[in-house]
């Protein structure tokens, strides 16, 4: 898998913003569900030219969604995805993502 296939997009939320405000910065990404920690760290290193210290991954379950239609209720869910949190060494940062 190519690096740009592994990393799909940065996750921008209040929480991910807070994680970036400390000395040791952590970045949060939506990644390909098939990728493992090692691949993700390699991809971040390749794309952003930084040295990741550690990587935590988790599978985010899709959220249930309901829609009422003429023929009764339709159940469904949003797509499940994989989240990766990358910890960088102290003082390092990814400028492209800052404030996006």
């Amino acid at each position, binding site marked *: 898998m190519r690096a740009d296939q592994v990393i799909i997009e940065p996750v*921008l939320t209040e929480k991910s913003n807070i994680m970036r405000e400390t000395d040791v910065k952590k970045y949060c990404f939506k990644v390909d569900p098939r990728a493992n920690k090692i691949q993700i760290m390699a991809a971040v290193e390749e794309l952003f030219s930084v040295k990741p210290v550690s990587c935590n991954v988790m599978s985010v379950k899709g959220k249930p969604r309901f829609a009422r239609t003429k023929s009764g209720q339709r159940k469904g869910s949003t797509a499940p995805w994989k989240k990766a949190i990358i910890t960088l060494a102290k003082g390092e940062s990814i400028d492209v993502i800052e404030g996006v």
Partner: protein
Amino acid sequence: MVSEKTFKELEHSSVELTVTVDQDIIKSEYQSLLADYTKKAHIKGFRKGKAPAKVLEQKYGEGIRAEVMYSVIERSLKEILEDKETAYVPLHYHQPVLQNEDELEIDLEKDFSYSVVYDVYPKVEVSTYTGFSIPVPEVQVPDDLVDAELTQLQEQNALVTVTDSPAEEGSIVTLDYCELDEAGEPLEETKREDFTFTVGTGYNYYQLDADVIGLKAGDERTIEKDYPEDHETKPLAGRKVAVKVALKAVKRRDLPELDDDFAQDVSESYETLDDLKRDIGKRIHEHLDARLKEYKLGKVLQQIVKAHEIQLPDSMVRMQLEQTWQSTLQQYRLKEEHMLSILGTSKEEHLEGFRERAEQQIKESLLLNKIIEQEHIEVTDEEVMLSLGPADESADDQAKSNRVYQEMQERERLTYEKATDFLLAGSTFTKGEEMSYEDFMNKRFEAQETSE
């Protein structure tokens, strides 16, 4: 908030205004707007108002900067243009036009400058407005004009009575009619009931004038008409048509006798026929005098306009054209689309034909106003009072405000009259070509002469 402003005069009475705004003002404006948005923004992944300003800036910075730019432009322009001491006041119906709008951009680290162009009231200076020598047509009032007027009055006061006698030339007939098809059956869509016309005028669809002569009320008849190829009414041309008519009433128009009674009928203010005749004669001369005065004034103004060069702003001409357009619409009581479909041209094309005339009109009124100002032609309160009569002290508020408006209009009218007299007194009028009364009254001088 404006740190620098420069005016530059352009052609056609427009002005280019260049404004520079200090960067500190831009910055504070930007910050406050950003803070405002941060409080309200809904951004995915953040609760309302919790998104950091930085995120917002990154995402919507360009839009916010554009908004700041326009608000700064608007406020600074307002500040300059509403300042009483500004030398160049824009025409109230013309919006200043921003120059190079696409290239304008706000940089928080630099002063911001922009320029607008707007039309101002044209500079008018009048120097020569007296001493013109203008030939005025010698108008002959024919002697039989009074008689012609009398005949017209007679027609207007004619008594219409129902008669049993057959219709003749000049009778008023009321009839039902319908066209018959080949089998002799009436065609529903051509049916008309209680149609009234005067025999001999030809104001009816099938031109039945000659055919109804001799018919009495209650008569029914089928009339065969054969229309020539070149008949005016297109659908009938070259056709053979059978029309069934049923006369309902025949009325006769009785002209009153020309005597003292007739004069009294026309108006109670006349005692004898001679009074009426004298009054008609007087009225004719009054009309003529008014028209002559109008003609002279038109000529004098034309000379004055010719002697002065005024650069009219485009917006002013367009405004005048728009007014012309609106008044035309009102005159014909038509909707704009309808009017355009009748004219068969676009509004702009149609109005372009009036441009020269509109320019002339504007110049005339501008110059006249300037002359009024320069010569200190003023109307005193007493003169207005004298013309309108004393105000009613016991009137209610509505009537009072009406009165104020009336006085204003009267003052304007009197000023205009005075200025007219002043201008006419300043020029000499020589005898021109002879012209008959009718020709002179019906001719449209301004339209003809501006196109020369």
